[in-house]
């Protein structure tokens, strides 16, 4: 890959758009690393949160969009809370993740799958069904045995059961979700 830093206008424009949406001035960051130092998920990240900003500043968006880090962020907001410049890093990551998803660049498949199933679930029932969620997730990702050890306890103590608790007007929620999607698309277009 060509690592030359010149002529990265398109990537920089993308970075600028994501930054603007998150209300961030990328030049605020002086790379102190307090974000990465406090990030609970940093242990498994391939790009440190601090590095994400530097990569974006230089227009190395490919590295950001391909990274696992943007999928692993738990949105706990510890970074921005301690950041001396109040940089909304979770906002940047969220923007990068949506962009990556749009381009089919999924750094951590399981995370993407889980959110998709979660939302499908909501679309179908209005509420989220933990049994359905976990079941579908295990089946689609192939992690068949994950968390199965806890099932007997849950069944025994009726923590979960076969009956579904749904929103009565689930169809209303479904329509809401469709309208929200349209509004989101419009919002995105407005930004570009």
């Amino acid at each position, binding site marked *: 890959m060509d690592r030359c830093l010149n002529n990265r206008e398109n990537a920089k424009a993308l970075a600028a758009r994501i930054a603007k949406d998150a209300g961030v001035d990328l030049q605020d960051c002086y790379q102190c690393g307090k974000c990465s130092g406090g990030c609970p998920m940093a242990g*498994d990240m391939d790009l440190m949160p601090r590095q994400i900003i530097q990569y974006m500043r230089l227009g190395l968006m490919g590295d950001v969009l391909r990274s696992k880090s943007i999928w692993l962020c*738990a949105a706990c907001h510890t970074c921005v809370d301690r950041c001396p410049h109040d940089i909304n890093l979770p906002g940047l990551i969220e923007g990068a*993740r949506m962009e990556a998803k749009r381009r089919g660049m999924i750094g951590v498949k399981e995370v993407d799958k889980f959110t998709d199933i979660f*939302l499908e679930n*909501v679309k179908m029932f209005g509420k989220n069904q933990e049994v359905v969620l976990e079941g579908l997730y295990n089946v689609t990702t192939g992690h068949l045995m994950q968390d199965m050890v806890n099932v007997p306890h849950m069944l025994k*103590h009726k923590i979960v059961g076969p009956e579904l608790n749904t929103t009565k007007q689930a169809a209303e929620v479904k329509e809401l979700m469709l309208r*929200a*999607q349209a509004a*989101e698309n419009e919002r995105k277009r407005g930004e570009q």
Partner: protein
Amino acid sequence: MQFSYYPGCSMDTTGITYKLSIEYICSKIGLVLHEIPDWNCCGATAAHSKNKMLALALPARNLAQAEEEGLDLDVAVPCASCYSRMKHTVVAARQDENMRRKLEEIIGMPYKAKADVLNFLEIFSRPEMKRACQEKMYRTLKGMKVACYYGCLTSRPVEVTGASSTENPMEMDEIVALTGAEPVEWDFKTECCGASHQVDAPKAARPLIERIIRNAKANKAQAIITACPLCNLNLDMREGEINKAKGTRYDLPVYQFTELLAVCMGAGAKDIGIHKHFFPAFDLLNEYLRKAGD
């Protein structure tokens, strides 16, 4: 005292002990919760990682329903994640009139963003609530050392939650102290437990739980106290797993703060589902109740 009430999807399942203990306390102190009639999922982490408008619209439908009922009450939300999402919506609608109108359009009903969203720590921190609880408590957990775990979403981002402190909050400590239990000073009150990634990125997220339990233990706590069904499930369910996988010997039951209150008001183990905990939770409570009884 009355509130509109948004239980959230896990209150009937994995949050059952939270639900039972809240119901028990309500019955004792006359707190009335009006459940929002046909509520839907708040969208949790999933919605806002995919679609900003959806993340605001799903809670808006619930809040609009609460308004539609005309009770003019603030909305009580037990789950920290639901609380965070709902509060995001309220803040966004209040800050930006266009956004509020847009949300009305999406949910197809009027939404004025009048009601506040409160979590149960905020509710129980009110002096009159504390007084009411204290009046009804006749048992004590005197001497039991507990670590109050607040989690991330009740405190951050502070522009949304308005939390008094994002590193060392004291609200739960003060409430729990009413039971006679002794909250310890420790350092992981608001560190993330990784709940949102425990299913889809377990390898990365498990250590988050362990370091919370480790710090609580290192600071001499005997139990961890939470105020969220997700945090609670996460710590409670995974503690045994961690012990098994890593050969550690953590022995901290994980209670909801409402469970401690309820127990001191006289609730039996069955009443509030102490036996439903993944990590054995009965013995410790029993020991301290006994001690105090002697």
